């Protein structure tokens, strides 16, 4: 049903760009159990990107777009930064307006979609860098959570301002020497996951994007919980290999090193009680669906 909306008129088919034709033919809009394993066998919702070679953000983008549970009715909100170089290539509606106002945009957007489509699911997902989320936009990040706005906030944490050339950010580690931190950053990495929990988020995860299956689970949970219960926050380490002096091939190892149990991106998760209940219900339904499918397959 979701393909209906992107179908090409036969008269215009041959003049459409091939990436659009591919979307119509093999993108996974509407597929119930879509996930990272579709990568390679179906058209991804991200075309090319203009990030640096080997940038972990590009991996994160691909996993997230493969994992959105409802891309045919999802609108994404970005902010200025490296992510805004990718969004024009993404095959879900997305909004870039200013730097740092992404959670305010998403608040208005989600409410407008709820007014206009009261009987339909329309998911809103914010995806912005750490400067946008934690520094210039912190006020609006937190206020959206205080108001219990029903959308997901994803922060690509590369621990600095990458797009402007590697300046200090609030999520940078203490002591790191960077532009605008000439003697090393003087204060600790802001503890936004804990702040998110205290601000009313129902699902908070802090991790890297080294494991696609983990990213898939986290993104799916965060969108489904935001849809039904309230705000969710996902902080993903997407190291800026350029600014921390790594080579193109070293992004994955950097993430693996940073997610060890004592490191700052060791997997951390908070789930509120209502969210736990929802996840249990969804898991039960999923089990039921799989059993029914198996039974059907057996009969056939």
């Amino acid at each position, binding site marked *: 049903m979701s393909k209906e909306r992107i179908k090409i008129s036969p008269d215009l088919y041959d003049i459409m760009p091939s990436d659009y034709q591919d979307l119509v033919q093999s993108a996974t809009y509407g597929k119930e159990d879509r996930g990272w394993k579709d990568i390679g066998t179906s058209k991804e919702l991200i075309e090319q990107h203009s990030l640096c070679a080997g940038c972990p953000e590009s991996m994160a983008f691909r996993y997230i777009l493969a994992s959105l549970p409802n891309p045919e009715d999802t609108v994404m909100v970005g902010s200025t930064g490296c992510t805004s170089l990718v969004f024009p290539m993404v095959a879900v509606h997305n909004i870039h307006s*200013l730097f740092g*106002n992404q959670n305010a945009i998403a*608040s208005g957007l989600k*409410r*407008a979609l709820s*007014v206009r489509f009261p009987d339909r699911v329309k998911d809103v997902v914010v995806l912005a860098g750490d400067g946008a989320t934690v520094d210039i936009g912190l006020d609006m990040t937190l206020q959206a959570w205080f108001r219990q706005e029903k959308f997901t906030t994803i922060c690509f944490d590369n621990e600095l301002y990458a797009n402007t050339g590697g300046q200090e950010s609030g999520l940078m580690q203490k002591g790191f020497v960077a532009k605008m931190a000439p003697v090393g950053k003087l204060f600790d990495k802001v503890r936004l996951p804990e702040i998110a929990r205290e601000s009313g988020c129902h699902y908070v995860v802090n991790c890297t994007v080294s494991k696609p299956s983990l990213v898939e689970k986290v993104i799916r949970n965060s969108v489904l919980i935001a849809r039904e219960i309230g705000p969710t926050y996902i902080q993903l380490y997407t190291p800026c290999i350029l600014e921390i002096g790594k080579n193109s091939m070293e992004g994955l190892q950097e993430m693996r090193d940073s997610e060890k149990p004592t490191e700052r991106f060791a997997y951390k998760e908070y789930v509120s009680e209502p969210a736990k209940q929802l996840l249990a219900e969804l898991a039960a339904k999923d089990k039921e669906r799989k059993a029914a499918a198996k039974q059907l397959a057996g009969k056939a």
Partner: protein
Amino acid sequence: MAEIKSHIGTQNKKGQTYTDAWKMMHEAPRNPSFYTGSEVIKEALRRASCDVMIAYPITPQSEAAALIGELFAEGYIGDYFRGESEFAVMSQCAGAAFGGARVFTTTAGPGTMRAMENFPMWAGARLPIQMIVTCRGINSPLSIQPDTIEISYLLNTGMLVWHAETAQDFFDWILKGFIVSEEPEVHLPLALCCDGFFVTHTKDVVNLTPADMCLPPYDPYRSPVPCMDMECPPVRMMRDPFIMKSNYISYATHASWQQEIWAAVERSRKHTIKWINGLIDTENTDAEVVIVASGTAVSQGREAIRLLEDEGVRCGLVKVKSLRPWPGEEIREATKNAKHIFVPEFNVTGWLAKEIKSTIPNSERVHAGPHVCGGMTMPPEIIASEIKTALGLRSESLAGRGS
């Protein structure tokens, strides 16, 4: 895609009938009512089929913003909430408009300034949001009193900018403003300005349209840019993000988009003329002396003209209603006989006089003033005195002016 159909003649959930806007504004019976300007804003919104209103407290618009909250509680507005600052509110308005809603908000003075980054973005993204600006002083020193200086900052944002004189203007223009700014060939935000307190906090008789009639709902699929609701194909917008490309295509695209915004302002001209009956109003412009003003300075100018008539000085009046689109041609025509053009303003810089000077031939005819600012009133005697002084007539000294 959501079904596109005419709603005219059908009823909304409050039992109001969606009515052809021209009929509602020009042919339906009017009911004289005695209201404050803030109450008039509420009554206009009751009839506006507004989807989302976002509020924030700042004097002198707080009362209007709270009254619209009452409308929401009564079920006339789709959604309503208090944002955390004007910057956030204007971004929330943008988000709602990107999502296809008819959006309304109100602000004033320092709030307008705090939100400023949003306004060129609204225009650039072609979001037909309506923002009421109840003008007041900009700090510092702290002032909550009437002053129109904030309008000058809005003039180059790409927004439509109208300046209401009376509560009646306000009532009519709020409703007409949605129609003009939502025209597909316009589709731009509107800053509908008035002079704070003078209009918002005084009572006046206003002729209201029937409360059981309302505007047809906004149709986001008439927008010249896609509505961000995933109801139309998620086109890949660009092959390369322009921001990183220092090349001809990038520059040319940005340049043409900037020009398109101002072309849309230009295209709003004919709709504005049609709906608010011209960009200016004129009286006796065959006189050698003409006052050109906007907002409540028009009212004060009108009183000054009465005083001058008593003394045998004939003086014409031009009321500037729309600042964007700018009525250059109209002002040139209306001032062609004038030897002296006076521009009284409620601000210290005289931005309206500068706009007029840059528009008309022989601009030395323009006397920029009198100016009052920071919340001072503008007694008609000051205007009359300034005119008489310029004409070389004897003028009685005014209290406090030291002469």
